[in-house]
């Protein structure tokens, strides 16, 4: 079972010309079309995100991994090709056919996201609890007591001291801010969690604790996770499946340990070689 299946997903930024696709990609060594200057952020991406698993998307900056995440999460709309999403009741939904309000509903109710930068995912002008309340509210809950209880539970589960729930996350440490983001993402019991470089800006010891938290949550909830990272160590620890992207293309897919031990593509071999 898959939660996402894409076919020839392509995303241009620029004027685009007929030869953009063939003149960019991993083999061409660029994602900028030499003829017209268009950036091909995604170049015929075909992938399957397995249900209940953690899929690591690895690649360097500019490989298209964040664009992919943004499109599947539903904050970017301009891609061509097909991206099917299987909702909790098993229906396959073509993301490209949804209007912005429907995409938002998916984001609000069925997806959760954690960004590298807490400023992107949290509102620092309101309390940590308020940040979680916002997500609980979109699911239609209108009882203050219930919202508060839910926020307390989520913060507790993600290791944020609940006595600090009425403080702004601005005063929290980086690791704690990521925990609040995770609590917020989980508020509506999503079935897909998008993690965008969640540990990149953290100290190593804090990084480890956040990874532990994600793993524990995954083991408990079995939600599907799309993990975007350039850190192979993070992917190795969390992911069971892996795709490797370069210049907008998927150059390799496989089980995480197989990619690590027997990478096939020249770029993956280079990447793994460099990381060890």
């Amino acid at each position, binding site marked *: 079972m898959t939660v996402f299946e894409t076919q020839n997903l392509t995303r241009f930024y620029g004027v685009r010309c007929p030869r953009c696709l063939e003149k960019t990609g991993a083999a061409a060594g660029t994602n900028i079309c030499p003829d017209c200057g268009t950036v091909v952020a995604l170049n015929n991406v075909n992938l399957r995100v397995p249900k209940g698993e953690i899929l690591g998307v690895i690649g360097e900056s500019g490989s298209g991994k964040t664009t992919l995440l943004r499109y599947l999460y539903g904050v970017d709309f301009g891609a061509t090709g097909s991206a099917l999403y299987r909702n909790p009741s098993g229906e396959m939904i073509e993301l490209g056919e949804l209007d912005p309000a429907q995409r938002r509903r998916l984001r609000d109710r069925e997806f959760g996201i954690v960004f590298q930068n807490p400023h992107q995912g949290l509102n620092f002008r309101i309390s940590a609890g308020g940040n979680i*309340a916002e997500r609980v*509210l979109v699911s239609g809950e209108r*009882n*203050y007591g219930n919202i508060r209880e839910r926020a307390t539970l989520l913060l507790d589960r993600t290791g944020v001291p609940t006595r600090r729930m009425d403080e702004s996350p601005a005063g929290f440490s980086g690791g704690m801010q990521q925990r609040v983001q995770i609590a917020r993402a989980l508020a509506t019991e999503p079935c897909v969690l998008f993690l965008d470089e969640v540990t990149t800006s953290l100290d190593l010891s804090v990084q480890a604790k956040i990874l532990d938290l994600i793993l524990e949550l995954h083991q408990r909830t079995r939600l599907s996770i799309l993990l975007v990272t350039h850190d192979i160590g993070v992917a190795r620890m969390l992911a069971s499946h892996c795709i490797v992207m370069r210049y907008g293309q998927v150059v390799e897919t496989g089980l995480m340990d197989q990619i690590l031990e027997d990478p096939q593509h020249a770029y993956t071999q280079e990447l793994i070689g460099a990381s060890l």
Partner: protein
Amino acid sequence: MTDTFTQDASFNDGETSEASRQYSYGLMDEAAKKEIRRACLRAVAIPGYQVPFASREMPIARGFGTGGLQITLSIIGPGDTLKVIDQGSDDSVNAVSLRSLIEKVCPGANTTEDSDEATIVQTRHRIPETILGEHQVLVFQVPYPDILGGVEMNEERRVQLHGETDYAKLYVALYEDVVRNGRITSGAGYPVEVNRHYAMTPSPIPRWDVPRLSMSHNLNLFGAGREKKIFAVPPYTEVTPIQFSDQRFSVESFLDRNGERIACARCGSTGSFLDEIYLSDGATTFMCSDTEYCRKNAEIVSPVPSGAVEFRSPIPL
């Protein structure tokens, strides 16, 4: 709603007195008034939706009621009777100035202080205590037309939130209020939902007036001149305050220390919105914020109680 009128068109003697100038009826040209009326129609058709309009320069500064003024000037005609209030008072500077301006540029329109007589009531921050009827229009002067302005800085994003009726952020503000203060403290301009769809600011009216906006007999038009927006609550339209099921919206209670409803020091009313008035000796007392209602009520109910100050404008008008 008439054509251009001329007030003594004598230009030949070189005089440049006010009276000698030629004005359109209601100060604005017909096209401008038509555009505003069309905006009002759109606003009525989509209750709570903020219709953009080309706000004109007015002879008063923006922020002093230009939005309400433009609506009034666009809908008024000879035979209409206008009442202008500011925070419930017919006598405040702003109300008096606006009233005399409109009188000057709208010949044939009468003015009044009596809410029952008026066909158009222009107001700043209050709804008259007297219940208005179907033949009356209430025009609000609005400083900030977008209720989401306080929770979302980016206007493009706000338009999107309205479009998707995504009002979680308003509830979050309410949540934060309860977290900090133990209850909802939001006072003037309490967020409401109109016709179970758009969230709207009722303009900075007190909470007291919010329930009176719902299912009103009269048409309510809201004009924000500086922000160039018009919106409306048509007659018999549901207006519900945004609230939690266990933290409800409530109007000001005006209870004294013993839990008794404070009465107006002048007319004795216990069913109106009260202003706290400072007396010359530093003590305070409560009186109706709606001066016309209070006066009427005092005439009917009782004489002026001794010790209360007379309501007088500090500036001779």
